[in-house]
């Protein structure tokens, strides 16, 4: 195999050279513990503070509102458990959606076992929540609304500003999992009335294993990781300084270049979606036609199964993902595809292609050349397709 095309940027991204360049000396030169008072420690502390400033600037937040974590899952866990435990006296009700990442959904399930009540808002066929549903779900026991900014599978972007407004009016904390949104969507936590926001560096060309949580000043939230006094006593554990430095540089680049990045991805995505829809019959596009992440294309090809599709694409050097049961690790296909109303058998045939920095028009051309053949080959092998051909 000579050609390799990476089309799974929603899974993870490559670290940018500029990011790595800033990280490397932190391993070998500025390796001090930021909590130490001597020069080694002070140098490291300065780097962490600089990264904090960069994250704050990217979000329109204050530096003291940024807390570094080990990634998106930790940030989501922290919000859900921390807000629930610290605000028990005010209420026990959380509102979220049925299409959240498992870091939110499984944590909510755990909280339900502990006596909290969770409303999982449904979504329409495009994966959008309905504002009326949100309003109707609010009770005087509601302490937290947690709604993802943009969906990792189908790319649909939620009406965050409207949700923020409602949460503010009703005096309820609003958290958004923005793991997929950073670098793709312009975010201003103050203007959008966001109280808490989760992010993860490796989704925007930063390193893995590091993330952050923005917590608006004055928010009542209990600690998740207890121990030493790092992060102003809010998140224990020696700071992952190289990772934090990488996150800082990556978010700076991601937000500075947001317009040109968007423009580039949108052009490629339009070509990809139009090409696939034109060339392959019995195909549907999942997610919202416009309100979606610029690099996200998600399709269902009827009569075939996603894992077979991925294996075939891999043999042609194309890295992609699917929401079929065989790739989700359970017997059911993706909860997101089921939530937008797809029947099981159709959801099994899903394919997610997520474009990024290094993709080119030639990559899209190659996919458009290879994919229709693969789909046809699998359909020719499928007993479901026979019936279609037979005019049934």
């Amino acid at each position: 195999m000579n050609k390799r095309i990476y089309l799974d940027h929603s899974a993870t991204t490559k670290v940018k050279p500029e990011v790595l360049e800033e990280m490397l000396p932190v391993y070998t030169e500025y390796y001090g513990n930021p909590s130490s008072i001597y020069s080694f420690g002070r140098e490291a502390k300065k780097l962490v503070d600089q990264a904090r400033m960069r994250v704050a600037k990217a979000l329109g937040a204050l530096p003291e509102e940024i807390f570094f974590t080990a990634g998106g899952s930790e940030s989501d866990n922290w919000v859900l458990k921390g807000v629930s435990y610290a605000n028990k006296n005010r209420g026990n009700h959380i509102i979220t959606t049925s299409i959240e990442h498992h870091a939110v959904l499984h944590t909510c399930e755990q909280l339900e076992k502990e006596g909290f009540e969770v409303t999982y808002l449904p979504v329409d066929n495009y994966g959008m929540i309905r504002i009326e549903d949100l309003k109707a779900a609010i009770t005087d026991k509601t302490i937290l609304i947690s709604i993802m900014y943009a969906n990792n599978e189908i790319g649909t972007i939620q009406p965050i500003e409207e949700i923020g407004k409602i949460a503010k009016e009703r005096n309820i904390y609003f958290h958004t999992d923005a793991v997929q949104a950073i670098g793709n969507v312009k975010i201003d936590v103050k203007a959008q009335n966001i109280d808490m926001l989760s992010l993860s560096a490796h989704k925007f060309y930063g390193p893995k294993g590091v993330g952050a949580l923005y917590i608006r000043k004055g928010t009542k939230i209990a600690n998740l990781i207890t121990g030493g006094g790092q992060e102003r006593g809010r998140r224990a554990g020696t700071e992952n300084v190289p990772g934090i430095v990488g996150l800082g540089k990556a978010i700076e680049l991601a937000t500075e270049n947001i317009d040109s990045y968007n423009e580039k991805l949108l052009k490629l995505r339009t070509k990809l979606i139009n090409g696939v829809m034109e060339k392959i019959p019995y195909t549907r596009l999942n997610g919202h036609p416009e309100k979606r992440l610029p690099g996200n294309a998600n399709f269902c090809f009827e009569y075939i199964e996603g894992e077979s599709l991925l294996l075939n694409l891999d043999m042609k050097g194309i890295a992609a993902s699917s929401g079929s049961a065989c790739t989700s690790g359970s017997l059911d296909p993706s909860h997101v595809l089921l939530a937008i109303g797809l029947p099981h058998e159709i959801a099994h045939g899903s394919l997610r292609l997520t474009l990024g920095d290094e993709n080119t028009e030639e990559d899209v051309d190659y996919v458009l050349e290879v994919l229709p053949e693969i789909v046809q080959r699998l359909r020719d092998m499928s007993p479901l397709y026979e019936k279609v051909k037979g005019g049934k």
Partner: protein
Amino acid sequence: MYSEKVMDHFTSPRNVGEIENADGIGEVGNAKCGDIMKIYLKIENDIIKDVKFKTFGCGAAVATSSIATEMIKGKTIEEALKLTNKAVVEALDGLPPQKIHCSVLAEEAVKAAIEDYKKKHNKQ
């Protein structure tokens, strides 16, 4: 994740297709679960002269169908009925634990096709 044998049968599946006027057809699984296997048999004097399959499913589903057809071709129906999912897994040099059900489907598909043949030919 998959053995070379599985990938070989997935990339170049043996005996894909349909048999016109097949003597026995077996279809198992369902689309909801993401696996359907359909096996067609051509039988003469209780010997499986030809076998074809069509499968909707993952890599393991295709590979188990493919190898199962190879394992029963030329055998008597009594021999073919003895095909077990374990034998299918072994012939493929193993399957990941979550894919064992695919081998079960392959065994069931072969049995269903032979049952169909017996029913059609009043052999029961």
